[in-house]
């Protein structure tokens, strides 16, 4: 149980600049979104919305996965980072609401609604997609919350009062006698269930919201590719978050260089896993040379206007991090790792565009990518920042690490 009670007076995480800045980003995103919606670019607006929704939800889902996996494997090195990773899960309720809003744009987002699908229409119709994806997200986020509820019973200082949510949690925890062993067992159970749900729900979301945009194309690895990519992105954001907390003197969060090194190694590993899953799909489709399958890949990697984007994504999200992360010293430096992660995240945002864009703009002459998409993306980022900062504000113990001993 955490015993530290007193923290610096006043909000450390939710400083006025942070809140103001984040809300500014959200505001700008909203402005651009509505301008585009009311104008001729409503398709683009919804496309950008979908891409950003998928991106930031993946980050949140992957962030909690990090904590769950660290718990299940009882890995010691990840314990200090687990708190920061769990804060990313603060985006879950936001993501859930955003998902409902996503369906307001279903005319723009689901090309299969206007296509002849045959038997597949039983699976791909707006109502089914909405119901099952809502259910999936509900289950996933519910299990995640269950995991956090049990895990935080030990981590948080129950006696510090900080707002309504914390009071609610306190009441729930005090309501029944907390048997440490049973709670620990339940934490592990929820963690395992969350991991299983992560694989299933993220695959489902990938099949329904990304793969189905080209309803006659399919790839069995697509679901797994999506959830592996989500974890890769989450690690990138976690590196940036951990570096920010570490470099902020007002926060009692300090990591040893070896912990940054470990996080960097994990990031490197998932860079390879993501690239491997991409290659697995590419080699099978390329080699089989079946036109039903290759059309999707050709459109995205060989045809204009998407070809340069494909090479850019490959370089930024794989080649550059691969070469840089071979070096041992870089992995231990928070500053350089944050820069590299930001770069990689940019590449992965563009990767989402590469997958979704051609399906929603089949006859594009030029890349449907511009300031509009960028601002909407940043607007979502503002929401993420607000969500994460709120979590730290209510549960500041998550941003604490023990004083390091050893290298």
């Amino acid at each position: 149980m955490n015993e530290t009670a007193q923290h610096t007076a006043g909000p450390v995480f939710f400083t006025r600049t942070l809140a103001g800045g984040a809300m500014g980003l959200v505001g700008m995103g909203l402005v651009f979104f509505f301008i585009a919606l009311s104008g001729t670019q409503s398709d683009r607006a919804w496309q950008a919305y979908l891409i950003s929704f998928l991106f930031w939800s993946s980050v949140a889902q992957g962030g909690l996965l990090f904590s769950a996996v660290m718990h299940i494997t009882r890995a010691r090195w990840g314990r200090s980072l687990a708190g920061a990773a769990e804060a990313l899960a603060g985006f879950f309720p936001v993501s859930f609401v955003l998902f409902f809003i996503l369906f307001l744009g279903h005319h723009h987002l689901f090309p299969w609604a206007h296509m002849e699908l045959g038997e597949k229409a039983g699976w791909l119709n707006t109502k089914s997609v909405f119901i099952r994806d809502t259910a999936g997200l509900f289950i996933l986020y519910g299990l995640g919350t269950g995991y956090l509820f049990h895990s935080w019973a030990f981590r948080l200082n129950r006696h510090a009062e900080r707002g309504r949510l914390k009071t609610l949690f306190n009441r729930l925890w005090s309501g029944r006698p907390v048997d440490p062993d049973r709670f620990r067992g339940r934490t592990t159970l929820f963690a395992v269930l969350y991991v299983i749900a992560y694989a299933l729900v993220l695959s489902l979301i990938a099949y329904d919201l990304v793969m189905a945009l080209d309803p006659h194309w399919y790839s069995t690895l697509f679901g797994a590719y999506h959830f592996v990519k989500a974890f890769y992105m989450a690690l990138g954001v976690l590196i940036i978050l951990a570096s920010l907390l570490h470099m902020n003197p007002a926060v009692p969060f300090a990591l040893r260089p070896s912990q940054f090194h470990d996080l960097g190694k994990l990031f490197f590993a998932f860079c390879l896993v993501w690239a491997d899953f991409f290659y697995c799909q590419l080699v099978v489709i390329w080699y089989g040379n079946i036109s039903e399958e290759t059309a999707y890949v050709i459109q995205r990697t060989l045809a204009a206007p998407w070809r340069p984007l494909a090479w850019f994504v490959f370089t930024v999200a794989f080649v550059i991090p691969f070469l840089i992360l071979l070096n041992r010293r870089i992995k231990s430096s928070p500053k350089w790792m944050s820069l590299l992660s930001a770069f990689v995240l940019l590449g992965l945002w563009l990767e989402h565009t590469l997958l979704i864009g051609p399906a929603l703009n089949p006859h594009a002459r030029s890349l449907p990518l511009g300031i509009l998409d960028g601002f909407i993306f940043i607007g979502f980022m503002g929401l993420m920042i607000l969500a994460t900062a709120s979590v730290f504000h209510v549960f500041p113990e998550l941003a604490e690490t023990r004083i390091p001993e050893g290298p």
Partner: protein
Amino acid sequence: MSEDPQHHTFDTIDDSVLATLAPASPSYWMTVGLLACGILIGAGCWAYQIAEGIGVAGMNNPVAWGTYLINFVFWVGIAHSGTLISAILHLMRASWRNPIARAAETMTVFAVCVAGLFPFIHLGRVWMVYYMLPVPNQRNLWQNFQSPLMFDVVAISTYLIVSSLFWYTGMLPDLAVVRDRSNGRKKKIFTWLSLGWTGAHEQWRHYTRAYLFFAALATPLVISVHSVVSWDFALGVVPGWHTTIFAPYFVAGAIHSGLAMVLTLMIPLRKIFCYERIITIGVLENVAKTIIFTGLIVAFAYGTEFFIAWYSQNPVEMEVFRYRPTGHYAAGFWIMVVCNTLVPLVFFFQRARRSLPILFSVSILVNVGMWFERFVIIVTSVSRDFIPHAWGRYAPTWVEFGIMLGSFSLFFFLFVLFVKHLPSVSMTEMKEMLGQGGGHGQ
């Protein structure tokens, strides 16, 4: 970890392991003899096949790949888990692997050896292997490096060489221990084998670095080798084979079967050699937990394949996935599903994870299930592909069963010889567990 080896000292570890290298009992040599008979049966069947032709095996039109490929994939799969334990868990600093790392790595080397025989066997006319090797020749004939079969040649040879080097390098400090505690001819042999290792700090400095690189290189190798093996199937257009999920699915399945084989080997080993305090029940429990994980991945892959087969609305694809659970080979299919995905779920209960009979039975069932998985994938897809007029059945012949018996005998023969002549537990890594947390300098 419930039992920690804190009650060990460096000397007790050495004594326990070195005691296993003492001269063997008659029952040991009888076991070796029995296994040698199995090998001879297999060799006899193979010789018969070389003399009479590949037709004595059951492969024909349309099922041209049968037990030889099944066994090939099966043994390569088993090999992967050994590298997972010795290399990947080393990178993750999971010290629970230390007691079993040596035996697991040995399992890898021998499994790859056995696996590597099967492409030869499958050639029928084994001398034709010459044409698969890039040897410069006057006719300027070269292999088609675009073929997945050539990828196999490269990948399996690489895996065999790398695993052997990794295995030997890992054993160096232990070979020195045996050298220092033995006399006479044994001392001479181990002196030569241990290359003059003295444990000087300079040697350790380079050694720990090189071992880390070995582990870091073996990890992508494991994933790539079984991906390459899976692409033997996935790169063709055969329905049920041509699917993108094969590479990670096969890797997960390989580790699943390999972990089960680790249990199958370790449980009798620890009983016979009195290793209970070294290979503790906690270690076996961790293997069991990992089996749950790999079993879930395999289950996910099965589910995804069925879902996408329906989603694709491709009549040929849908037929293959209807045929598998309900067709002529349905028994194999259901054995596969039950043994691979349902049986390991029992390990969610701690009592099952710590019960030796359950651990052992589950390990056997998982291996049976994984063998049948390769059977289902290979045979059902090829027996019913595009043209109904070309559909046909397959059954292995006695030659194939004999060779299969020979392969299992060869594997266990090599392993049984190993455990009595070389240290089957890494004394060095066990000692490292006493001091710090990791193995070999982590």
